[in-house]
């Protein structure tokens, strides 16, 4: 039985010398090289592939490519498992494992099919109507039910093992689709010298030329396609991409294309990506995406074995596969007759039903000449066959084609239907093209373009080969002329194809009398004619509303085969013409795209760049636990032996208070500021005065946004008359630089100042603690580090081991402290030298946790307090605000709301039991016993264990903070379900007068 459904002649693209084994639902089959999973299954006589979304009806193949709505499978196993893959788009590869979705326990016997029997309870809008109330049912009953019933595949739980890549391309002309108009466009543009990319979704170039019997020049269509591709390949200015789908058209001619690189390879090499996402910025885009055949709605038109006539033809001509041996062809136009002729080549005589009264098209005549009886004015009313089509109820139509005049049943094993053709306008629509309705072909075509995009051939509604080629050559040449001066014209060859007569405007068959079988429009979302009727009856008029209510065209296939039939049906009921009904907007992606491809290589550590200080390796060797600070990796603490974080942090912080600690502060933002107007500029940027800062001195500064909120703080020092070194917080470094550039370039261009980030040029090492002076004096014996020689906020340049070093006397910990800056490359050397000398002083490194502890104890504000909602007054920085001069944001500070006495301001908190740590983010309330909502006084911004007092301490921002000092309040954390009685104290918990830093 295997491969019993193959054509007589091997004139397609199947290589019978290479057998390929695969399994479907656990059974092993074989196909050949060149097969898709779809053609291989059909050649084995298998049409039943899955169950439908809502009613769990048995479904087979409708199409042969991207238009396929039914044949979605789960591919592969384990971590490579992938759901919802369209079988018509999967190339057969040795060992491929596929299985049906949306069925349990098996595709033949599916429990969910009960939905089909109950289908009168599942009309359009069913979910909206049924799952409205009670609200409490949602989580436990409705949602699990819908999830289980909603029949899609299963995503694997393990990480995706495959590799995906991104690529950026630029070209003059991107041609999407390699049918006759696409090949013509690409050839004309490329020969004229434009840089061309030609993208084809399928594994072979040629589009309809692979299936149609036509002549171009003195060649067959297929030969001309091969010849043109060969010519294009020989040109250096052309990139040809097959297995590549352009799925998105974004602004400024940015298109995105997915290339299936190794999905079809049996053993791809380790570093070959599975798929590659190409971002193509194209000068011009030629949309030659062809057209998709339309189905016809008739009773039970969704049984396995009922498919598009063009699909049946492509299975025969390209994949050498017979979709059946007892076919019915059902059409409203001439093109389906080419499918009939293919059957006849295989000695199979189809039954032909044509809704039209007659046709004298060339193909029709040819079929007649071969002695086939054509039943005009006929249609299908209903079908039978549970898991596969077995028979059709057919009959003649009355004069208005609104009823059948007689009915009979005939046996069949497949029905090939054709409702005419719909141009594939998705990309043009995505590009912003306003479509117009073409009455000649009863479909929408691109009209007013918004971007540099041109549709040609069938995608433009030009259905004849002559038109397609002429448009392709013309548009390809015209557009390429925008990019080159060559003016090389490629002549359009003569072509010959059969003449077609017009289709009939009939896409929905009447029901057989007294029966109401479902007539499907949207196969993927199980939307039938009756659902559209119901939506209209219930008052939905806008096509966008009908779409959402019925879910017509909303499935993964984007309504490729259903949109227009749905519109047509709405317009029939409404007695309007289609353009008045309008159409819905197409959005990317045109076809489903693997998330892995969208993510590309930006996974794990590659998700973001990692910034490391030059001392990073030392931290690593010394057992540091790291924490991310923006992109930086900073040591959080350095645990010793069995220490937990609290132990380590307390030890590190206490050692700073009693001996000396060393901390890597390389990550602080540093900005070099130069120019005669630099002092004036700083005076405008900072809230305090800068004009009189002496050379060789540093000053703490606070900068605001124009709305008065504190933006950043840091220490800036004057290196020479017109040269300053600014430091910013680690988090705001990039924003501060942009801020300075904005004011210099946009607001005050008259100021002669240059700013430059030097964050990565300097490595900064903080040496803090009462023994820091002694330590550094030993390391730098030649400089005077006494309180007089280098006072608080002073700086001195020196040399050590031939390295330039700048020592600042600044402190973040509140202790006597210094910061040694050296060029980044010498950061590690400097660090090791300080550690060496420091041993005698019990030096220990401390991380960001201890750093926080030290600053919180001192009441120094940081990011948690400066959260963009605080004016200087709120965080105790009022003393920093100059009354004399103007600066960025100053005017805002006098606004009423910002001067109000009861603003939330900074305080300290100590738990009454002196033991319970207060979670950051806790709410501060006066009384925790009242019913909610409890009036909130403020929140806890930072918490630590005070190593000075050996009890917890927090900083909080609370209403009228100053006047609350000494009061008892509650810190409530609903997340942790605790309420801690606390005493409000000054935020300057340790050394409130700042004696230590000046000692």
């Amino acid at each position, binding site marked *: 039985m295997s491969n019993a459904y193959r054509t007589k002649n091997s004139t397609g693209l199947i290589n019978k010398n290479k057998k390929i084994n695969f399994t479907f639902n656990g059974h092993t089959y074989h196909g050949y090289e060149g097969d898709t999973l779809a053609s291989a299954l059909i050649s084995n006589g298998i049409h039943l592939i899955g169950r439908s979304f809502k009613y769990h009806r048995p479904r087979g193949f409708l199409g042969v490519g991207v238009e396929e709505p039914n044949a979605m499978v789960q591919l592969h196993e384990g971590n490579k498992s992938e759901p919802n893959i369209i079988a018509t788009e999967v190339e057969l590869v040795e060992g491929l494992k596929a299985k049906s979705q949306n069925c349990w326990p098996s595709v033949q016997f599916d429990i969910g099919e009960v939905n089909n029997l109950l289908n009168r309870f599942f009309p359009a809008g069913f979910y909206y109507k049924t799952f409205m109330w009670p609200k409490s049912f949602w989580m436990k009953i409705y949602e699990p039910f819908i999830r289980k019933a909603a029949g899609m595949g299963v995503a694997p739980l393990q990480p995706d093992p495959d590799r995906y890549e991104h690529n950026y391309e630029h070209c003059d002309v991107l041609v999407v689709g390699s049918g006759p108009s696409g090949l013509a466009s690409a050839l004309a543009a490329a020969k004229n010298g434009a840089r061309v990319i030609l993208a084809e979704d399928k594994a072979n170039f040629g589009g309809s030329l692979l299936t149609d019997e036509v002549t171009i020049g003195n060649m067959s269509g297929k030969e001309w396609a091969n010849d043109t591709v060969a010519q294009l390949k020989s040109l250096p200015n052309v990139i040809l991409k097959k297995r590549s789908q352009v799925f998105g058209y974004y602004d400024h001619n940015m298109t995105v294309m997915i290339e299936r690189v190794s999905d079809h390879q049996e053993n791809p090499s380790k570093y070959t990506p599975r798929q590659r996402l190409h971002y193509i910025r194209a000068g011009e885009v030629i949309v030659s995406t062809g057209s998709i055949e339309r189905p016809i709605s008739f009773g039970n038109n969704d049984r396995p074995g009922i498919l598009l006539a063009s699909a049946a033809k492509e299975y025969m001509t390209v994949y050498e596969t017979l979709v059946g041996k007892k076919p019915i062809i059902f059409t409203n136009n001439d093109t389906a007759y080419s499918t009939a002729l293919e059957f006849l080549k295989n000695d199979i005589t189809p039954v032909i039903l044509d809704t039209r009264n007659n046709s004298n098209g060339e193909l029709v005549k040819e079929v007649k000449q071969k002695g086939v009886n054509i039943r005009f004015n006929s249609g299908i009313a209903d079908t039978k066959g549970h898991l596969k089509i077995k028979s059709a109820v057919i009959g003649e139509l009355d004069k208005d084609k609104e009823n059948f005049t007689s009915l009979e049943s005939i046996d069949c094993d497949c029905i090939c239907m054709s409702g005419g053709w719909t141009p594939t306008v998705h990309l043009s629509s995505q590009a912003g093209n306003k479509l117009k309705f073409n009455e000649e072909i009863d479909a929408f075509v691109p009209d007013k373009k*918004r971007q540099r995009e041109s549709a040609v051939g069938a995608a433009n509604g030009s259905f004849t080969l002559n038109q397609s080629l002429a448009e392709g050559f013309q548009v390809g040449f015209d557009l390429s002329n925008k990019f080159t001066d060559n003016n090389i014209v490629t002549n359009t060859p003569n072509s010959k194809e059969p003449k077609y007569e017009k289709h009939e405007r009939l896409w929905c068959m009447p029901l057989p009398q007294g029966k109401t079988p479902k007539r499907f429009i949207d196969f993927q979302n199980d939307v039938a004619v009756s659902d559209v009727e119901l939506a209209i009856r219930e008052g939905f008029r806008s096509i966008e509303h009908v779409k959402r209510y019925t879910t017509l065209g909303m499935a993964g296939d984007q309504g490729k085969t259903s949109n227009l039939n749905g519109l047509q049906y709405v317009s029939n009921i409404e007695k309007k013409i289609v353009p008045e009904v309008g159409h819905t907007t197409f959005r990317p992606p045109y076809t489903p795209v693997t998330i892995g491809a969208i993510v590309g290589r930006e996974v794990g550590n590659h998700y973001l760049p990692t910034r490391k200080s030059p001392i990073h390796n030392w931290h690593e060797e010394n057992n540091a636990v790291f924490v991310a600070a923006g992109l930086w990796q900073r040591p959080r603490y350095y645990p010793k032996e069995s220490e937990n974080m609290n132990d380590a942090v307390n030890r590190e912080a206490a050692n700073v208070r009693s001996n000396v600690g060393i901390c890597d502060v390389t990550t602080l933002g540093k900005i070099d500021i130069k120019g005669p107007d630099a002092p004036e500029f700083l005076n405008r940027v900072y809230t305090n005065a800068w004009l009189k800062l002496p050379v060789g001195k540093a000053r703490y500064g606070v900068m605001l946004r124009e709305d008065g909120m504190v933006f950043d703080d840091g220490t800036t020092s004057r290196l020479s008359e017109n040269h300053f070194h600014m430091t910013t917080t680690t988090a705001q470094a990039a924003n501060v630089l942009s801020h300075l550039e904005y004011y210099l*370039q*946009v607001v005050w261009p008259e100021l002669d100042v240059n700013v430059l980030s030097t964050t990565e040029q300097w490595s900064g090492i903080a040496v803090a603690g009462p023994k820091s002076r002694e330590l550094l004096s030993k390391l730098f014996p030649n400089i005077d580090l006494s309180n007089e020689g280098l006072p608080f906020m002073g700086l001195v340049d020196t040399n050590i081991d031939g390295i330039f070093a700048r020592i600042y006397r600044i402190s973040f910990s509140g202790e006597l402290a210094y910061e040694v800056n050296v060029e980044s490359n010498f950061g590690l050397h400097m660090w090791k030298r300080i550690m060496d000398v420091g041993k005698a002083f019990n030096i220990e490194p401390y991380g960001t946790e201890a750093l926080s502890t030290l600053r919180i104890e001192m009441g120094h504000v940081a990011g948690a307090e400066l959260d963009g909602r605080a004016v200087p007054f709120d965080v105790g920085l009022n003393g920093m605000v100059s009354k004399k001069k103007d600066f960025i944001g100053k005017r805002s500070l006098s606004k009423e709301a910002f001067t109000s006495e009861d603003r939330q301001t900074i305080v300290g908190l100590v738990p009454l039991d002196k033991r319970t740590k207060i979670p950051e983010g806790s709410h501060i309330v006066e009384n925790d016993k009242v019913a909610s909502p409890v009036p909130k006084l403020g929140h806890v911004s930072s918490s630590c264990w005070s190593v000075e007092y050996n009890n917890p301490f927090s900083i909080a921002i609370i209403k009228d903070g100053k006047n609350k000092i000494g009061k008892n309040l509650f810190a409530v954390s609903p997340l942790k379900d605790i309420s801690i009685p606390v005493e409000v104290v000054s935020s300057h918990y340790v050394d409130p007068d700042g004696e230590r830093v000046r000692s």
Partner: protein
Amino acid sequence: MLEIKCPYCGKRSQNEFSYGGDATVKRPTLGEEISTEDWDNFVYFRDNPRGKHTELWHHVSGCRQWFKASRDTATHEIFDTCKMNEALNE
């Protein structure tokens, strides 16, 4: 993703730039007496036009220059870009 022509570097993809808002807003002069209403208009209020908009962009992952652009907010068409001390071709 838009393609933006930096007046210093040429055409680059949008992800190299950051947006800077309405370019026609003038910051009040430093030291100038100004009513709360005028100040609030400067700090908080911006027009949100559909159509042509004169705006600032910062080539933040490039030359780090701020510049002006004239862009259609509905279609994203960029009519012109220029340096801060130049005038846009409107």
